[in-house]
C-alpha cells in the first residue's frame, strides 16, 4: 500500500496529485504540500540517517529547520547538496534523496562500531587521544576521523545553477509569518509602511498551518497583505543574520523546490535588507529532554508529531507515548488522538497540573511525577521505559512513537545577534530576548507570548509601533483571531533523566553530545558555557543546537551548582540556519569574480590571436603567436623586431591622471622626489614618488601639457593607489593648494611605437608633423593627427629604443593603431605584448613591480639621483632613516648567466650566493628573461654590496628545483647603458 501512514483526511496537501520521489533508491510517493520528511513518514520510513560520531540510527526528530537528525543529500551529480534537513526540503516530482554518513548501507553500517568504542571517543577526544605520535595526526588520525565523522558529500562538479544578490530597503521588516508576523505585517502595511514579510517556509502561516480553526483568519491576512502595493512577501526566505545599522541578510530558496531552476531563473538569492524597523516574529522552538536513548527513530518533538498530523496528514506512529514537563504539550496528545493515533500514556514529570486533570477528564492515562528512562528498540522505537520519579522499577510501555516536550524556547537567534543579551524567564523556563539595542522588537512566541490570539495581538501592536517608529502613524484596526483558548504555559523544568545503565542521554543529537559529555567538560575545567560548547562541540553542528542547546546549558548549570541564568547560553551568531556558498557568492564566481577591465584595443587583440593574461582586473595581450609558434618563440620574435626594426604595444592600461590648476606644479614638486614646476610645457620628465615611510611608491613619466596642466602616468598596477595618494594629499594635507585631479586612464588609449624604425613609422602615420630630433627631442611632447583622430605624441621609451607613445581618445584607438601598423608595414612592424615588453625593460634595466615591491627605497633601486637636494617631498624624512641609508642594504644589479644554454634557466626568486652550496644569501633575483641582445638568461637582482660587485661571478640557486646557475654581476642596464638609442 502506498503511503500507509497517510491519514485519511485533513492536512494542507493536495491529494489530487501524486509526486514520485526516491529515497536511497526506493520509489516512493507523496503529495504537493509535503516536505521530504512528511512524505517519508507517510511511507513508513523511520530510519533516515546515521549520526555524526557514533553512527547511531536516526529518524525524523522535528518538523522544521531545527532538525538535528534527518539530514539528507538532495539531487545528484552537479546538483547534489549535502546536509539538507528533510524537514524543510519541499517535495517535488522526481526528487532524489539519499541518507548520509553510512556505509555500506543505512541499515547495516560499519561505522556503528564507533558506538562500541564510545568510551574512547569522549568529548574533546581529538584533543587528547590522537596526540601521539605527532606525525600520525595529519596522515593517519585526521583522515580516518574525517571519513568516519563528517556529514554528506558535496558535489564535485561545478554548480550548474545561477545565484544572485538582491538589495532591499523597507520601513518595517517582519521576520516570520505566524500569527504575530501576519498581524505585524498587516498593521505596519495598513499604516502605509513599506513592509517586507519574510517566511522561511514555503507556506505562509507558521504555527497557524497546524491550526485549521484559524485558517480563515490566516487567509484573510494574506489576502489583505497581497492587496498592499508596498508589502513584499518573501516565502522560502530565511533571515539568517542581523548586522549593525539594521542590515539583515536573508537567503531565498527561489528554485529549490523545482528539479532545476527555470530558464533565466536563479537557484537562490541572497538578500541584503536595510530596514528602518524590524519585527522579529520568529516563533519558538520546542526543546528535547535528555533521557537515555532519546535519539532513537520514533522519538520526536511533541509539536512535530502534531504538525505532521495536522499540516501534512501523516501519522508519525500508531501508538504514542507523550513525555512532557509542561501543559502545552497536551495539545499534541489531544490532536494525535483525534487523528486516530493511540496515546498509550502521558508521562508528566510534574506532580500535577491543570492539563493533567483535563487529560484525565478526557480519558487519557496520565502518569504524573514520572519520566521516560529508556527506549527499547534500535532502528526504531519498540517501547518506552517509564518510571516514577519517586523511585521504583521502570515499566515497559509498548509504543512506536515517543513524543517529547521539554518546553519552548523563543527563537531569539536574530535578536541576540543585534546583540541584545537574552534574559532568563523563570516562569516560562526559557530565555527571552533582552532589551533591544537596534531598531527592532520581538513579538509573539519569539518573546515568550504564547498562544495564537495572544501572539496575534502582540504582533499587531509591534507592527503598529514599528511603523510609527519609522514615521508612519495610524493604520486600520484589524480583526484578530476570535476563538482564543488561554495559552497553556504552565511548566516545571525537567532537563534530564539520568541513565541507570549505559544509555546515552543526548543534549545534541546532531553532534552526538550527551549530558555526560557536558559533565565531563565541567570536570576537566571547561565550565564556562562557551568553553563547554567548544570542548564538547555542543551546539556546533549545522542545527546549532536549536532543540537541545538550553538543555546542555541546564546540565552544565546543575554540574556547576548554579542557576541557569548565571550560566547562560553560548552566543548566537550568523547564520541562523546554514546558507549555501552559492547564495553568498551570487554572480561573483568564475570569470565574474571580479569585473574584467578591457583596453580599448581589446577587440583587436582578440581578433588577432593574442594570448591574454589577467593582470589585476585587466586582460592584457601577452604575445601574438603566429601559426606554429610556441614557447618563447613569439616573445623573442616580437622583442627582436623592436630591437631591430619597430614594434607596436598597447600601453593603454598605464594609469593617467590629469593634474590641473594654478598650483599643479608645486603640488607635484611635493609628491615627487624630483621637481616638475620647472618642466617646460611640451616636455615630459621621469619621476619617482615615495610613500610616507620612504619606500618607493611608483614611478612614471609626467608631461606638462600647459601652464596649469600636467599629465601624470603611473604603472598599471598602481594607478588607483597613486590617484588615492594624490587625492589624499590634495584634500587633507595641502587643502590650500588649488589643484584638481581627474583620472583619464580610460579616456585615452595609448600605444608604444618602439624600435630603430619608430620615427619613420610614426612619420608616415602622422603626416605633416615634423618628428625630427630638433622638433621632438627625447622627452618631448607634441600633438598631431593620425587617421583623422587627434593624438598626443610623447617621446618616451621603456624598451630602451628610439620610441614614442601615442595617445588618442579611446574611441579612435583602433583607427590609430591600424594606421600605425599600416605605416610601419614597410619597416617590418609587429605588435608586441606584455612578455616582450618585460623582456625589453629587463634588458634595459628599468625597474618595475618586482623591484618596486614596497620594500625598496630609491637608493636601493639606483634612483638616488632622482632625490632632490632642496625642497621637501613626501617620504623625504623617513627615507633618510639610518636603517634605510644602511649601505649593506641589497641594491639593484644586473645578472647574466655565464652559459648561453637556455636550459640552465634563471628564475625570479632565486637566491644569489657565493658558492653553490653556500647557505648565506647575498640577495635575490627579482626579474629574469631570455635576452635577445645577449642571447642568454639575464635578470635583475637585489644584492648586498650592489653595483660594487660588478664583475663578480656568483651563483643563482633555486633549491626548490635543485637549480644552480653561475652568473656574472653587471650593471642593471644590459643594453645601451649610455642611453644613446633613445636619443637617436
Amino acid at each position, binding site marked *: 500500500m502506498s503511503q500507509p501512514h497517510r491519514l485519511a483526511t485533513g492536512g494542507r496537501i493536495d491529494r489530487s496529485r501524486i509526486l514520485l520521489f526516491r529515497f536511497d533508491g526506493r520509489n516512493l510517493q507523496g503529495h504537493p504540500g509535503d516536505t521530504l520528511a512528511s512524505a517519508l513518514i507517510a511511507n513508513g520510513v523511520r530510519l533516515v540517517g546515521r549520526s555524526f560520531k557514533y553512527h547511531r540510527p536516526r529518524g525524523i526528530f522535528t518538523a522544521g529547520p531545527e532538525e538535528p537528525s534527518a539530514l539528507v543529500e538532495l539531487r545528484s551529480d552537479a546538483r547534489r547538496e549535502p546536509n539538507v534537513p528533510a524537514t524543510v526540503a519541499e517535495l517535488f516530482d522526481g526528487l532524489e534523496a539519499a541518507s548520509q554518513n553510512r556505509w555500506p548501507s543505512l541499515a547495516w553500517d560499519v561505522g556503528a562500531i564507533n558506538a562500541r568504542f564510545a568510551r574512547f571517543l569522549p568529548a574533546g577526544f581529538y584533543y587528547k587521544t590522537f596526540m601521539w605520535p605527532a606525525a600520525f595526526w595529519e596522515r593517519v588520525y585526521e583522515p580516518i576521523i574525517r571519513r568516519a565523522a563528517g556529514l554528506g558529500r558535496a558535489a564535485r562538479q561545478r554548480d550548474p545553477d545561477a545565484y544572485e544578490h538582491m538589495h532591499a530597503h523597507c520601513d518595517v521588516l517582519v521576520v516570520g509569518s505566524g500569527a504575530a508576523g501576519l498581524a505585524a505585517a498587516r498593521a505596519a502595511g495598513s499604516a502605509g509602511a513599506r513592509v517586507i514579510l519574510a517566511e522561511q517556509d514555503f507556506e505562509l502561516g507558521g504555527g497557524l498551518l497546524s491550526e485549521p480553526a484559524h485558517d480563515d483568519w490566516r487567509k484573510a491576512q494574506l489576502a489583505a497583505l497581497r492587496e498592499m502595493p508596498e508589502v513584499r512577501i518573501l516565502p522560502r526566505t530565511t533571515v539568517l543574520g542581523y548586522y549593525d545599522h539594521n542590515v539583515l541578510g536573508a537567503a531565498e530558496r527561489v528554485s529549490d523546490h523545482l528539479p532545476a531552476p527555470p530558464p533565466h531563473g536563479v537557484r537562490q538569492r541572497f538578500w541584503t535588507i536595510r530596514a528602518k524597523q524590524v519585527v522579529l516574529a520568529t516563533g519558538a522552538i520546542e526543546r528535547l529532554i535528555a533521557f537515555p536513548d532519546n535519539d532513537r527513530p520514533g522519538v520526536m518533538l511533541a509539536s512535530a508529531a502534531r504538525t505532521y498530523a495536522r499540516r501534512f496528514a501523516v501519522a508519525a506512529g500508531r501508538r504514542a507515548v507523550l513525555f512532557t514537563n509542561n501543559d502545552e504539550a497536551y495539545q499534541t496528545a489531544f490532536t494525535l488522538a483525534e487523528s486516530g493515533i493511540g496515546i498509550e500514556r502521558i508521562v508528566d514529570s510534574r506532580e500535577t497540573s491543570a492539563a493533567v486533570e483535563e487529560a484525565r477528564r478526557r480519558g487519557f492515562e496520565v502518569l504524573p511525577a514520572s519520566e521516560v528512562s529508556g527506549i527499547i528498540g534500535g532502528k526504531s522505537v519498540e517501547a518506552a521505559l517509564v518510571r516514577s520519579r519517586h523511585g521504583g522499577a521502570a515499566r515497559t510501555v509498548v509504543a512506536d512513537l515517543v513524543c517529547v516536550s521539554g518546553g519552548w524556547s523563543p527563537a531569539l537567534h536574530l535578536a541576540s545577534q543585534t546583540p541584545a543579551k537574552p534574559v532568563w524567564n523563570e516562569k516560562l523556563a526559557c530565555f527571552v530576548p533582552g532589551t533591544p539595542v537596534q531598531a527592532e522588537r520581538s513579538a509573539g512566541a519569539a518573546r515568550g507570548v504564547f498562544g495564537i490570539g495572544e501572539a496575534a495581538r502582540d504582533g499587531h501592536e509591534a507592527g503598529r509601533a514599528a511603523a510609527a517608529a519609522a514615521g508612519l502613524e495610524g493604520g486600520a484596526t484589524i480583526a484578530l483571531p476570535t476563538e482564543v483558548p488561554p495559552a497553556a504555559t504552565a511548566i516545571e523544568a525537567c532537563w534530564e533523566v539520568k541513565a541507570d545503565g549505559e544509555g546515552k542521554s543526548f543534549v545534541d543529537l546532531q553532534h552526538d553530545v550527551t549530558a555526560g559529555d557536558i559533565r565531563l567538560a565541567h570536570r576537566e575545567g571547561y565550565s564556562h558555557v562557551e568553553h563547554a560548547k567548544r570542548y564538547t562541540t555542543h551546539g556546533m553542528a549545522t542545527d546549532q543546537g536549536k532543540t537541545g542547546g538550553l538543555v546542555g546549558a541546564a546540565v552544565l548549570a546543575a554540574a556547576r551548582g548554579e542557576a541557569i541564568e548565571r550560566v547562560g547560553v553560548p552566543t548566537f551568531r550568523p547564520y541562523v540556519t546554514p546558507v549555501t556558498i552559492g547564495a553568498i557568492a551570487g*554572480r561573483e564566481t568564475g570569470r565574474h569574480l571580479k*569585473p574584467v577591465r*578591457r583596453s580599448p584595443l*581589446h577587440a583587436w587583440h582578440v581578433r588577432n590571436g593574442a594570448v591574454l593574461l589577467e593582470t589585476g582586473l585587466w586582460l592584457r595581450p601577452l604575445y601574438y603567436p603566429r601559426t606554429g609558434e610556441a614557447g618563447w618563440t613569439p616573445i623573442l620574435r616580437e622583442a627582436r623586431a623592436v630591437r631591430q626594426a619597430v614594434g607596436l604595444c598597447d600601453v593603454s592600461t598605464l594609469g593617467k591622471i590629469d593634474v590641473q590648476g594654478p598650483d599643479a606644479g608645486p603640488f607635484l614638486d611635493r609628491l615627487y622626489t624630483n621637481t616638475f614646476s620647472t618642466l617646460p610645457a611640451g616636455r615630459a620628465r621621469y619621476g619617482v614618488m615615495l610613500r610616507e615611510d620612504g619606500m618607493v611608491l611608483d614611478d612614471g613619466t609626467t608631461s606638462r601639457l600647459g601652464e596649469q596642466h600636467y599629465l601624470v602616468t603611473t604603472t598599471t598596477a598602481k594607478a588607483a593607489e597613486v590617484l588615492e595618494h594624490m587625492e589624499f594629499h590634495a584634500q587633507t594635507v595641502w587643502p590650500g593648494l588649488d589643484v584638481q585631479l*581627474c583620472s583619464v586612464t*580610460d*579616456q585615452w588609449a595609448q600605444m608604444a611605437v618602439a624600435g630603430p624604425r619608430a620615427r619613420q613609422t610614426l612619420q608616415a602615420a602622422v603626416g605633416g608633423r615634423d618628428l625630427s630630433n630638433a622638433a621632438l627631442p627625447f622627452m618631448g611632447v607634441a600633438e598631431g593627427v593620425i587617421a583623422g*583622430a587627434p593624438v598626443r605624441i610623447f617621446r618616451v621609451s621603456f624598451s630602451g629604443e628610439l620610441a614614442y607613445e601615442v595617445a588618442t581618445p579611446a*574611441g579612435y584607438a583602433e583607427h590609430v593603431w591600424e594606421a600605425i601598423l599600416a605605416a610601419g608595414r614597410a619597416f617590418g612592424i609587429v605588435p608586441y605584448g606584455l612578455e616582450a615588453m618585460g623582456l625589453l625593460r629587463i634588458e634595459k634595466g628599468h625597474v618595475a613591480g618586482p623591484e618596486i615591491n614596497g620594500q625598496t627605497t630609491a637608493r636601493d633601486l639606483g634612483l638616488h639621483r632622482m632625490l632632490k637636494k632642496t625642497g621637501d617631498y613626501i617620504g623625504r624624512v623617513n627615507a633618510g632613516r639610518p636603517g634605510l641609508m644602511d649601505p649593506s642594504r641589497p641594491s639593484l644589479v644586473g645578472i647574466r648567466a655565464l652559459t648561453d644554454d637556455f636550459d640552465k634557466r634563471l628564475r625570479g626568486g632565486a637566491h644569489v650566493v657565493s658558492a653553490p652550496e653556500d647557505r648565506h644569501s647575498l640577495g635575490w633575483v627579482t626579474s629574469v628573461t631570455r635576452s635577445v641582445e645577449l642571447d642568454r638568461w639575464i635578470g635583475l637582482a637585489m644584492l648586498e654590496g650592489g653595483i660594487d660587485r660588478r664583475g663578480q661571478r656568483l651563483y643563482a640557486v633555486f633549491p626548490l628545483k635543485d637549480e644552480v646557475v653561475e652568473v656574472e654581476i653587471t650593471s642593471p642596464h644590459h643594453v645601451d647603458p649610455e642611453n644613446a638609442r633613445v636619443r637617436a
Partner: protein
Amino acid sequence: MSAPEPRSALSAVLRPGHSGAKGETPVALAERRLAIVQLQARKVQEAALAAAIASALGLTLPPPGQASSASETTAVWVQPGAWLVTAPFTAPGDLARRLAGAAAGLASVTDQTFGKAVLRLSGERARDVLAKGCRVDLHPRVFGPGRTAVTTIAQIGCVLVQAGEAPTFDLVVPSTLAEAFFEWLEASAAEFGCEIREPG
C-alpha cells in the same frame, strides 16, 4: 581630414535584439553616446563657476545627489565642487572646449567622452534589475527623476542618474569596465527579459 566615427567600448557586445526570458515586462537597454566632461571648480570659485555656466549654457550646477538639464545638456554632481556635464556628441573635444571657454580660470576641465560609457536602462522592472547590485534605495518615495547617486554596482564605480519617471536610469561607468558592467546588467535582467536598442 575629419575625425572618423569613434568606436564605443560597448560596440563589441551591445547588439540590438532581445536577450533573456520572453517576459511580459522586459526592461530596455541602450547605450547613450554622449560627449562627457568633468568640470571641477577651482578653489573658492564654485559660485563664480556656477554663474559662468548658467550664463554660457543656461545650465544650473546642481547640489549633491541631483542632476539638472538645460536643452540637451545635463550636469550631474559627482564630488564636492565637481560635475559631469553631458551633451550630444559632435566632434572630439567640442564640449570640453566649450566648457573650458566658459569656465576659463574658474574650473579644470577634463574630457571624459571616451573615459565613460553611459547605459540607459528603463522599464517597470528596472529597479528590480538594479537592486541586484545597487545598494541605493531607488523607491519613488525616496528617489526620483533628477536624483543621482555616486555608487558601486557589481563592484564597478557608477554614477546613477534617474532620467525619467518610467523609471529610466542612466548609468555612467568607466569605459574599460563597460563590457563587464553590461554583462552583469544583461544577466540581472534575464529573468524579466531585456530589449537591447540601438545606441541613442
